């Protein structure tokens, strides 16, 4: 609305006058956006409006920023591209540049989408108030997540990502016989245990949870009715060992009903 008349070229300071030949072209006129359109910022003096020492500084800045930008895009490209000659030679440099803040993974449902429903289930050994011990049935925590997601326009990350990704984390940091395959193994164990304990705390189990056991139940999605494929849709179980529950396995979620439920 205002500002349009302060066009490029004229330097704001005493040294600002640029040689007329190098005058900047006026930036494309902002299309009139009706009376309510906000004022667009007018162009500044640009490099032509600077005196020589400042022009040199600006040129250096241009070079540094351009190289930095290109380098960054190159690094991110190597990070998301499949392993190749370049990334094999300079993998460490790429990781140093990209990790942790520019880490990204866009293999969304690729190369193939997940074709199985993985349910994480838990059962608990309860020390009853009468002194007796009993073991609960398997409780399907993923089914609870699914029920919470159904009909929800804005599913919570606590339902959609928490348990699902924790289980992925566990599976990826353990061997098939449930031994940690790296330093993160014990973290993933503690994580799934704490999620299970949080979910159990919402239930009235009639006593204190002494031990828990988790398992996953994996069922391949039925083949489409319109295809001639047939899938084995039986559930396959991966059963983890019993874990004794310690104080470190009890998360506290203040402000929610969950803390109260455990008391």
């Amino acid at each position, binding site marked *: 609305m*205002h500002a349009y008349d*302060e066009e*490029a070229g004229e330097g704001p*300071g005493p040294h*600002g006058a640029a040689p007329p030949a*190098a005058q900047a*072209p006026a*930036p494309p006129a902002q299309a009139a*956006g*009706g009376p*309510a*359109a*906000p*004022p667009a*910022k007018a162009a*500044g*003096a*640009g*490099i032509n409006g*600077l005196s020589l020492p*400042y022009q040199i500084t600006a040129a250096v800045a*241009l070079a540094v*920023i*351009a190289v930095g*930008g290109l380098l960054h*895009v190159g690094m991110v490209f190597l990070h998301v*591209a499949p392993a190749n000659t370049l990334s094999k030679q300079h993998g460490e440099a790429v990781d140093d540049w990209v990790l*942790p*803040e520019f880490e990204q*993974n*866009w*293999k*969304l*449902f690729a190369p*193939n*989408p997940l*074709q199985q429903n993985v349910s994480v289930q838990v059962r608990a050994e309860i020390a009853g108030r009468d002194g007796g011990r009993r073991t609960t049935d398997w409780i399907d925590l*993923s089914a609870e*997540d699914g029920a919470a997601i159904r009909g*929800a326009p*804005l*599913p919570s*990350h*606590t339902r*959609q*990502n*928490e348990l699902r990704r924790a289980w992925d984390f566990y599976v990826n940091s353990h061997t098939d016989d449930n031994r940690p395959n790296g*330093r993160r193994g014990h*973290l993933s164990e503690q*994580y799934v245990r*704490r999620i299970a304990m*949080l979910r159990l705390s919402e239930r009235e189990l009639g006593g204190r949870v002494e031990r828990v056991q988790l398992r996953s139940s994996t069922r391949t*999605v039925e083949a*489409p009715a*319109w295809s001639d494929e047939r899938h084995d849709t039986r559930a396959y179980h991966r059963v983890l060992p019993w874990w004794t529950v310690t104080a470190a396995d009890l*998360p*506290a*979620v*203040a402000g*929610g009903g969950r803390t109260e439920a455990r008391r």
Partner: protein
Amino acid sequence: MSPRAREETPEATGAKERVDRRLGRAVQRVTATALGPYQSAVVRIGFAGTWLFFLLREFPHRYELYGPDGPWGWDMARELIAGNHAFTVLMWSDSALWFEVVYALAVLGAAALLVGWRTRAASALFLVGVLSLQNRSVFMGDGGDNVIHLMALYLVLTRCSQVWSLDARRAGRRAAGARVRDVAGPLLWAAALPGLVTAVLLRDRSGELWLLVLLWLLWLAQGLWWLAERRAPGQPRALLDVVANLLHNATLAVVMAEVCLIYATAGWYKVQGSRWQDGTALYYPLKLDYFTPWPFLSDLLAASGIMVMLVTYGTVIVQVAFPFTLFNRKVKNVLLAVMMAEHAGIAVLLGLPFFSLAMIAADAVFLPSVFLVWLGARIARGRDRLLNRRRDGSGDGAARADDGERADAEPGPRTLVG
């Protein structure tokens, strides 16, 4: 100069001059203007809005997601972060109070960025908020969080408040001659200092060095800018403007490249999958319990083999093709509309609203200016109409009296100020 160069034909010299002149013009353009004012503004509004919406939606679950005693406990996060050096101020203390403060600041940062109030400071606070919460519990996030994380880093380097922001409104008033007192700026600047100093004192818990340097440089640049405006409005101020434009333009290009990389990766990896090849890929997510908020709708779509195949192939084609269509405006705009529509569909069908919003915000960097200006005008008109209606409804006589008074008073004070 070599003798051969001297023998150049007049046409060749002419061509060289033309190239030089074009290069000169391009350099002048990227140093004098922050390009894409509407695109950068819509990206700012999109990401700030998505993150703000997310934080408010998860407010009841904030402890479970990021709190010190959530399932991903503070000590566990500390152990993981000791290995990857991710930035999160939540590692400074495991107290619940500190957590509440950080969550509140994240909300405020997102809100300020959304409306473009003190945008540079707001974008820095937004960055700190996003990284602090997301890096605190990395296993809670998904692709949507990932894009927000990246864009939070890029946005601090852009001049994204040139339009559609409170900052732009204030700048407009100042340009019109109104005296605008600047109290909030220096106050914010001073308020940031304790945080920055703490980050240095707790160096080993404050992420990688470059991020700390970036935050300090942003802070120093703000101070420098303020000084230059008052003490050195000539060349130094113009140089700062040039550097700010360069950073903005380069970052906007990086953002565009980033969006292309996202689609290229998503597309090219899909091409290799057997389910994307046989045209059934879409069917499977529609049958996953974690991604079927509306089973009836999912089943409806999954029931038609032809529809599933069309969407499956269409998705791959659009994702692979998108970066190449940037060379043709019309095709680019069509694909952009298709991708935004697909993400809107994903929001509902797969129950991923925040992911979809974030992706649409990222796509928006490629929207044509004409469309954005038109959209802005429409929204402004709608807002004005709504406000007027409310005022009319509040009492006919009062509204009319108010109008009359304003009309009478208008010429007086305005001209005095102007």
